Every structure is written in C-alpha cells, then in structure tokens.
C-alpha cells in the first residue's frame, strides 16, 4: 500500500485491545483530500474502535494517527476538531431543543470562539453563514423548524451541515446512511461525495450498505478481526476472495 506524503489522514500500525482481546491490530491506511474512503467489515471487526481512535474518543495502545501532518494520538476530540475534523454519527446527535439554523449556528459560534459571550443574542450571530451551509445540504427551507420534528434523513443533512461548519480537511462519518431508505441513502451519499470533491475534503466512513459503498467509495478498507485484510478500489475489493468469504457473501 502506498501512503502519499500529501494524505490528509494517515493511520499507521494502530492497535488497541480491551481486556486482553485485540480489537484492532496494526491497522494502517490513508485518506487523501477529495477522496471518499469506506471502512467495511463484519460486526466486531474493529471498525468502530478504529474510528474512535481516529476521532480521539479512544486512545490507541500503540500506533500513530496523523491528520494534516499533525500527530493526534493523545489529543481530546475537541482538540482534534480544532485541526479541522468534522464528524457525523451513526445515530444522529443534534440539539433537539433548537431549530435547524440554531444547530448550525452553535457549530459556527464554537468555530469562531464566541461561546464565552454572556450578553449578545446568539440568534443574531452567523445567520448568513448558517444559511449558506444549510443551503448547501438542501435544508435552507427547513431552517426555522425545530430539530425534534425533522424526518431522520433531514437530521442527517443537518449533521452534515454542522460537520462542515469548521471548514474541515477531514470528515469522519460513522454509518452515515444507517436507518435511511435506500433512495435517501444514495441521495445523501451523492451529496456528500459532491461536497467532498468540491471542497477537497478527505472523508472516511463506515457503512453496512454495500450498494452505498460500491457506488460512492473511491477506496475501500476491509477490516476483519481487527486487521486490515484488503484495501483498494471497489473492483479490487469486490474481487478479493477473502473479503467475499468473511464478509460480502455471494450476492455482491
């Protein structure tokens, strides 16, 4: 595998064990700017563990994670976010008591270091920026609706807009299409792919829906029992006998 010097995310020899069980062993891969990379594998293969080590929620036992050339192992998720990392979650996490616009404004306020203000009205700050982001993900017409009443697919779009608020160089998406209907999945991933390419963002996502993976990923990393067993463009991965045996089965 070649790791280009210019890769935004470079993971090398990452390892983590829980109570003697090796969840991730010596995993290495890279994601370049403008590229969508899918991480797939059976349940318990170590995808989530891997993911959480990249975003800082878990500390690896050994190995290195470099984002934009900066070593992030040992940094808190908050500090990693400051380096320009946007995240979306498998189960959407938004602020239910606020409107769509306010949700995005929160991310912008944080990005612009304005959270310490006790006097100004938050609703008046970064309105236009919030609207621009919402327009980009197709949510401008729902900006004033409370997040608590949105359809699930729309919440995913709000999350995406929030993840873009800090002008990220890296986007981490945990099962971005989980819980969505097939057509919505394709739509959301097409939107994501467009944004990733136009803004030259490196994107890493985990996914169970192979239709989504094979339709949109530029490269695929396959994990099994904590190890990377295959890595490459979709056709290579699809043709890989080991991948077919442990994960894909006969259908794909």
């Amino acid at each position, binding site marked *: 595998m070649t790791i280009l010097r210019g890769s935004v995310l470079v993971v090398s020899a990452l390892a983590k064990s829980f109570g003697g069980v090796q969840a991730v062993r010596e995993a290495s891969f890279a994601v370049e700017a403008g590229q969508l990379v899918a991480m797939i594998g059976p349940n318990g293969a170590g995808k989530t563990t891997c993911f959480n080590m990249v975003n800082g929620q878990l500390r690896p036992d050994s190995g290195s994670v470099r984002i934009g050339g900066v070593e992030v192992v040992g940094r808190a998720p908050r500090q990693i976010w400051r380096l320009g990392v946007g995240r979306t979650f498998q189960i959407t996490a938004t602020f239910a008591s606020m409107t769509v616009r306010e949700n995005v404004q929160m991310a912008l306020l944080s990005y612009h270091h304005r*959270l*310490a*203000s*006790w006097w100004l009205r*938050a*609703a008046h700050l970064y309105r236009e920026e919030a609207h621009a982001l919402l327009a980009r993900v197709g949510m401008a017409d729902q900006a004033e609706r409370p997040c608590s009443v949105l359809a699930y697919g729309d919440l995913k779009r709000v999350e995406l807009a929030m993840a873009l608020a800090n002008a990220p160089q890296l986007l981490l998406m945990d099962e971005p299409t989980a819980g969505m209907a097939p057509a919505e999945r394709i739509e959301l991933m097409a939107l994501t792919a467009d944004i990733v390419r136009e803004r030259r963002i490196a994107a890493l996502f985990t996914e169970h829906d192979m239709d989504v993976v094979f339709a949109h990923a530029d490269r695929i990393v396959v994990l099994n029992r904590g190890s990377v067993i295959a890595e490459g463009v979709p056709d290579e991965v699809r043709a890989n006998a080991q991948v077919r045996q442990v994960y894909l089965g006969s259908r794909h």
Partner: protein
Amino acid sequence: MSSLVIQFLNGLAGASTLFLVAVGLSLIFGVTRIVNFAHGSFYMLGIYVAYSIISRAGAGGGLGPAGFWGGILVAAMVVGALGALIEILLLRRIYHAPEMFQLLATFGIVLVIKDYVLWAWGPEDLLGPRAPGLGGSVEILGRPFPEYDLALVFIGPLVLGLLWLLLNRTRWGTLVRAATQDREMAGALGVNQKWLFTAVFALGSALAGLGGALQIPREPAQLFLDMGVIADAFVVVVVGGMGSIPGAALAAFIIGEIKAYCVGIGQVGFLGYSVSLSKLTLVAEFIVMAIVLVMRPWGLLGRQQGAQRIAAGARERPAAGRAMQIAVLAVAGALAVMPFVAQPYTIVLLIDILVYALFAASLQFLMGPAGLVSFGHAAYFGLGAYGAALLVKKAGLPMEFALAGGPLAAALGAVVFGWFCVRLSGVYLAMLTLAFAQIAWSIVYQWDQFTGGSNGLVGVWPAPWLASKTAFYYLAFTLCGCGIWLLRRIVYSPYGCALRAGRDSPLRCDAIGIDLARLQWAAFVLVGTFAGLAGAIYAFSKGSISPETLGIPLSVDALVMVLLGGIHTASGPVVGAAVLTWLQDTVVRNTDYWRALLGAIIIALVLVFPQGIAGFARRRWARSEAA
C-alpha cells in the same frame, strides 16, 4: 490492637445498619427509576411501629425474644404494606412524569409521614426496650462489645445473602433484574411490570422499615430521623452505584468502617494542629462520596444510567409575545407601588418572595437550560448569607461591601463544588451537590467560634439608609429583579445556548469543539453567585442567620419552587417562589400540621400539573392562541 478490632466490629455493625437502610432504596431505584425521598421516612416509621408493637407485646409485654424479633418483622411488614399502598395510589400515576416530579411527589410523602408520626406518637423521643437476651455485652480481646451490635454484624450479611438468592436464583428475581434494565421490553415479553413494581416497592420499603426497627435498642425514635437517614442512604446508594445491591453492601462497609475509625481515633495531632476526627464523622461519608464519584462517576459497582427525562420536550423560547411582556411590566409596576398600599407584614413577605424568586431562578437556570440538577442549592444561598454576615460581624466591613462579598463567597464555593460536579450527570450529579451542601452545613454547624455553630449569627443589620422596610424592599426588588432578568438574558446568549446544547447532546458538543465541562463549571459559578446574592439579601432582611440557610430543607424548597413553577419556563421559578412562600406563610399560621398540608398540596399539584404551574399556563395559553 484490641481497640482496632473493636472499632472494626463497630464499623461492621454500623455498616449493617447502613446497608439495610440503603439496599431498599437501591432496589427501588433500580427497577422503578424512582428516587424515593420518603425512604428515610419509612425507616423512621419502622422504628416507631416497632416501638409500639414491642413495648406492648414484646419485651415489655413479657413475650421475650419471640415478641421482640417478631415485632421487628411485623413492623417491617407494616411499612412494606404502606409502601405498596403508596405505590399503588400515587406512584403508579406518575411513572411517566419526569424524574424530578417523582422526587417532588415522594418529598410530599415525607412531609405527610412526618406529621402523621408527630400526631400519632407525639414530639417526645421514645426509647425502646433492649433486645431480650442480647442486652449485655461480650468480651472480645478483653474489651466489652454489645451483644446486640454483634447480632447486627450478622444480620446485614444475612439479608444480603437472602436478597442475592431471591434475585439470582428465582424467576421473580430474573424478571426484576430484567425490568431494572429495560422495563418496557420486559413488558413486551409478557412481564406484568405493574405488580412487579409494587412488589419491589413493598420489598424496598419493608427493608427500610426493618432497618429502622432493628435500631430500637440502639437509638430512640425521633422525629428528625427521616432526613438524616435519607442523606445516609443516598450516599451509600450513590457510592455503591445506583441499583447495585452488592455495591450498596460494599459502600456501607467502607463508610461504616471509616466512621467507626474516625470516632475511635478521636483527636489527632497533625502538623502541630489538633484535629478532631470524631467531628469528621458528620461529613466523612460525604467526602468518601465526593472522592468515589470523581474517580468512578457511576459509583463503585454501578453503571451509566440512561438519559434523564428532565429535558424531555424542553424548548426555551426567545422573548415571549407582547402579552407576556405586558404581564411582566404589570407585575413589576405592581411590585414597585406595593410599599404605598400594602401592610408592613405584606412587605416583609414580599421581600421573602423576591429573595426566594432569585434563589429559585438561579436553580432553574442550572436545571432547565443547563440540564444540571442540584439537590444542594442551599449551599450557595447559605454561603452568600454567611459570607455577608461574617464580613459585617468579623471583618467589620460596611454592609454595602458585605452585600457584594456574600455572592463572592458563594461563587468561590461554587468554583470548588462545581469542579467536582461537572464530572457527573443525572442522579449522581444531584447527589454530589447534596453531599457538598451537607459538607458546607456540617462545617458551619460545628465551627462554633467562627460561625456561631448551631445558634448562627445575630445582629446582621443593613446600613442605616436601608433600615426602613420600605427602603430595604426597594433594594431587594432592584437586585432580585435585575438578577432574574440577567439570568434570562444569558439563556439566549451564545453561552446560554451552548449550555442548552450540552443538555441536548453532549456527544455533538464534543464533536463541534465545545468544552462542555468548562461551560458547566462556569454555570455553577454563575448560579452560585446569584444564589449567594439572594442569601446575602436574606441575611440583612432577617438580621440573623442560622445553619438552616444551608440545610437540605431549603434546597428542597428551591427544588419545589422550580418544579412547581415549571422547569422550562423563565417565569416558573418566580411563580413557584411566590406560591410556595405564600403557602408556607399561610399554612404555618393556621395549623400545627402545616407540613402534612403542604405535602398533600405538593402531591396534588404533581398529580394535576406535571408540567408545573407556569408550564401548564403556557400550554393553555398556546392552545387558546392556536384555537
């Protein structure tokens, strides 16, 4: 050596008692998710009922050991039956209400039971008989040790063992554990959770009753046992991990032993100072709790609780409509002209209401927008009051400085307490705030030379220009009004929004770079300052203060005000403070049994207005506007 062994045994006896008190609370919380404030009251009832039974039929009646032990078991069963009755009549109706309202309802029960005990057994302490055959002491390593305490050392583990068998070796126990984890799913699998809950509540209550009844030979039945015991039980349950029975046993053991050694060792020299460890016993358990919770936020053997329902449906709205603004101005205008029209007594009452409104508003800021529940909010009120009073009395500063210094003292307290508290969430957070308030209370209560101990401080009068009630009223009106307005303004600032964001989704906050713990810490300091201001005004309005300004009852009053008024409305705490203060004033003047009446009113309000009064009014308003 032998004294160490005796202390160890003393510790075990104490641990047994603590375990019996706490285990029922943990069991009930685990399954029903109800934090039962009335648990201490069940304990107290256990003692009183056992006293009546045993002094009639038991040792006094000549039935001997059978009468004594039988009496204790019957007392436990009576309390268990009462628990079942309360569960069926009251709690069943509020299982779907937010946890805080359940807590409020059980606090109503506390008040009712207290006055029932007062009515049935009178205000005198009642000393029960000794256990027949266990009245003496045995010699252990040359020292006497009470036989009854030795029996207690065995009773605790016996009950633990029986409970373990019940929960792990019976189908009923399996169902209880399943329901503890996911009661809805258990129901969908055909488990009748209604009766499961009733049975668990009855069992938990009976255990509290047993714990109380077993104390008959050791301590007199007293009216204030309920509050002391509930604090102990909360600490044990929280240290052990809520819902974990082995955890309760472990926590009881640790706390029992630490207390025993503190008493046993007594005075120790430390760097030339003499420190009385026995005085530490009052706070030892709270210090243990603070340490445990910081290191293991869900207790020794507990696990993370699901999200609290406190924020369910929460949605702060920006400045209310025109009608609301007019209403606020009208109230402010009415308050401004009060001194010209009202009786002097009304002015005094209004000052109280203003002070409590600010106090409650500060708690509401913490509980509503920030989503942090505090059971010990009186700590800041009391620190503000004592800070101001001490600056006048000991430092000789003018009242105006003291009025500013009081809130500062409270803020300093909040800096310390808040640093620990923001590491926790939910019920654990609430319990830690309670612990800190209790620590502050104990220090003030025991430090006679400085704080005046239980007598408090007297002669804390305002400056001459504020000596008239009217002048002081305007001072309170201005400061409290500005404070409440400022708190409301902050809710809609970026800072306030970030706090709400943290309440809604800590995970998302983390992912957009919000340092939630720091913001929440600042929230503690902020509300501590305002609560301290309320306390300082209170001190000068009364002219004297006592440790009660830091006590659990005042913390509970604040909670009641916020919940009465509605937790997610800015006007809520003001309405709640006005209603509760007026109610207390009126009720106290008209009956000896004011607590019971208040308790009944609280229970009725919870049943009728689960959204709080202001929340209810707002819904009505919204509905009539929509129609």
